């Protein structure tokens, strides 16, 4: 047991001694490998970054024009001080990756954030065999169980139709990076709907399109002249726009929040939105369990989310499991609005 772990938590992040690099560090380091571009995983200030090629544009937007970012194809091997590292699709958002680290025959996989459901805006999650699996646990309780996403999108479409018939706009709050684009893509078949976007969403739409992702046509809200009739509009905005003055222009609109948290009624009511649609970019409880099983890992380290229950549950099923204290937040129930994302309105 005295053997030093391949990866360990330091005050800066998850560190690999043998390879001398950090994964998703929360404080600046020399060499940072990034699972995906969300603010709690991709932080400013490190000297050099590496990530998956698909995420090139969104990473650059999030980390700033001057950030030194090198990107790699999924599955491509790079050597860091003799430690073999590769990125594998995590299915979370565009360019999201699990990071596989191999040294002297021992394999670790760090999941970052991930989901198992299909998503037209990113490569599907791919299970990677390993000895130790470091997994997120954002929705690591059995109350979190997603219905097929076709149901959620059908609900959104029905809600939008009712609003359109009543002459109202429909505003969906969704995280500007990833969720908003997934929702747009999921509603692309609503040919008759006009999609409008908040600046924060539009900025990332640009990156998605530049990366070759097909999104329906969107109109940037700020470019629409005053006095516009918003009846029937479908507006995508970040959660932080809720309750802001920006929202007033839409008049008596109906509001909704798209998130896995919406599975629980109290979470929706606290948001003070009319509707909550369960659309999550994280695994639910059953998918978390099958993903863990698919890695065939003997040891499971659990980070951000419901760590303790997941660890206990895994131990009761005979797996070696521990909680790993990171500063990653997953899909917080909070507004996530990292700097660099906003476009002035």
């Amino acid at each position, binding site marked *: 047991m005295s053997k030093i772990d391949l990866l360990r938590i330091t005050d800066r992040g998850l560190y690999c001694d043998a390879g001398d690099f950090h994964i998703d560090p929360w404080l600046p380091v020399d060499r940072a490998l990034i699972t995906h571009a969300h603010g709690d995983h991709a932080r400013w200030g490190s000297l050099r970054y590496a990530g998956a090629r698909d995420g090139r544009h969104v990473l650059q937007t999030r980390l700033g024009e001057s950030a030194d970012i090198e990107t790699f194809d999924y599955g491509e091997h790079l050597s860091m001080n003799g430690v073999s590292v590769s990125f594998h699709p995590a299915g979370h958002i565009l360019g999201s990756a699990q990071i596989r680290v191999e040294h002297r025959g021992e394999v670790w996989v760090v999941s970052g954030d991930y989901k198992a459901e299909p998503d037209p805006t990113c490569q599907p999650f791919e299970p990677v065999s390993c000895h130790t699996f470091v997994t997120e646990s954002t929705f690591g*309780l059995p109350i979190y169980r997603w219905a097929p996403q076709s149901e959620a999108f059908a609900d959104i479409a029905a809600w939008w139709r009712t609003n359109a018939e009543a002459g109202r706009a429909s505003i969906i709050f969704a995280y500007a990076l990833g969720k908003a684009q997934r929702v747009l893509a999921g509603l692309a078949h609503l040919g008759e709907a006009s999609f409008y976007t908040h600046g924060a969403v539009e900025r990332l739409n640009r990156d998605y399109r530049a990366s070759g992702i097909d999104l329906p046509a969107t109109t940037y809200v700020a470019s629409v002249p005053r006095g516009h009739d918003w009846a029937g509009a479908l507006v995508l905005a970040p959660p932080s726009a809720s309750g802001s003055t920006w929202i007033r222009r839409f008049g008596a609109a109906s509001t909704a929040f798209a998130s896995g948290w919406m599975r629980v*009624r109290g979470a929706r009511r606290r948001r003070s939105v009319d509707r909550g649609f369960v659309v999550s970019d994280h695994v639910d409880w059953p998918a978390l369990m099958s993903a863990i099983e698919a890695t065939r890992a003997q040891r499971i380290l659990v980070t951000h989310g419901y760590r303790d229950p997941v660890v206990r549950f895994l131990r009761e099923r005979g797996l070696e499991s521990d909680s790993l204290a990171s500063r990653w937040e997953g899909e917080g129930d909070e507004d996530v609005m990292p700097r660099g994302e906003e476009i002035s309105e």
Partner: protein
Amino acid sequence: MKAFARLFAAIDSTTRTNEKVDAVARYLSAASAEDAAWAVYFLSGGRPRRLVPVRRLASWAMDASGIPDWLFEESYHAVGDLAETIALLLPESTESSDAPFHFWVEKRLFALAGLDEEGQRRIALDAWRDLGGTERFVWNKLITGSFRVGVSQALLVRAVSRASGVPEATISHRLAGEWKPDADSYRRLVAEGSGQPDVSNPYPFFLGYPLEGELEDLGAVGDWQAEWKWDGIRAQLIRRRGSTYLWSRGNDLITERFPEVVAASEWLPEGTVIDGELLPWREGRPLPFAQLQRRIGRKNLSAKIRSEVPVVILAYDLLELDGVDVRERPLAWRRLRLSELIGSANAESRILVSPVVGAAVWEDVRAARERARAMGSEGLMLKRNDAAYGVGRRKGGWWKWKLEPWSVDAIMVYAQPGHGRRALLHTDYTFAVRDGDALVPFAKAYSGLTDAEIRELDTWIRRNTIEKFGPVRAVRPEQVFELGFEGIQASPRHKSGIAVRFPRILRWRKDKPVAEADTIQALRLLLEQTDS
């Protein structure tokens, strides 16, 4: 059940009153009288007593969903609502039921009461198999006796009126009092004409709005009656056909809780209805509200508790005289009749007229409010002399002008997640005052912060937890809050020796260091001021 669950979902997914009224009216128009009667029952807050112990329900749910009890507990902490937790954990329903709402309520829900554990289990499991999504959630809320929905009585009245075409005032009066949820009751409720169904029926209560602006804005002081606002149980005393009925504002029939008041009422003439406040009362002044709570809490009303906590009703208003509804008469007229009536019938001093504050100028009213605390009152009511006795909370005729709460600067020491709307976030806080170098917890508060502050504080709590006891976190004693409360009294049951009434957060004092928070001595001083 399907239609009622849809109604619940419709109400639950909007904050617009009009949409809620529409949804309820639509449901009532389409429903059978049997179903509508139960909908009225549940929408007006009717709750059957708990029919199955929740432990049992939880254990069947654990079996059915195949998860261990500790994981069930964790899930419950995250959801904050037992009925919802169960609904979320159970496997998806495999059947679907078209049985009407009254069938589910009468033949399933209420059938539970007479069954043994195995019989109850079978009903619960069958229901979970037949009901999915919102239906299952609503069923669980009904079975746990915790069904609540965002519908006020006024909204329900509007909806019934819209569905039936009967005027709101008539519906409101017919709905006051106890609702018998059967088809006949519903047909009577929506029948044309102005028939008054029941001899025991109270009138809807009239309520005041908090005063906005200055006293002077109300016009001439002579047009207004100022009276003490008491902190007891608002009630209607009804004397009809030789019987007395005592109703609380929550539409509970509480006649049996107050035999001394009932005995005193036997002197009242036939056809009398009085609006007043039940108060624990000794030597011409009220006892603390907690004394009344102590008495209400007793199953058996012993001679001892009755002598320790004697109760009177202080009459504010007269609503019915000689069997005639006088609510449309001006307040000054009603008040005069009330004084004549009670002056002559008041044999045991259990029914008193609540005194009016004499005022020649508005300054007198202000001065009276300053005296309110010493009187044991929570402020003043201002009522227009020519105002009718209205229905519900309306602006204009009546204003309430309560005392500013007392306040102290206290330090947060514990936090735990809230329930319902506030589950997942830490929203229930325990506060302490300083006692030398120690901290003495003295109050819990749940409200007063904005949603943004709650989220900010939640993040702080998660990062500054010293110790966890189940869902409760002990946090670093670093955050100071200004707490307001309405009353204070000595309490041997509290560690601090002090209990405060209605504590709430007035402000987050980020500017205040812990060393400047208040001390236990400051609280004791406040206590002395009240006692004197």
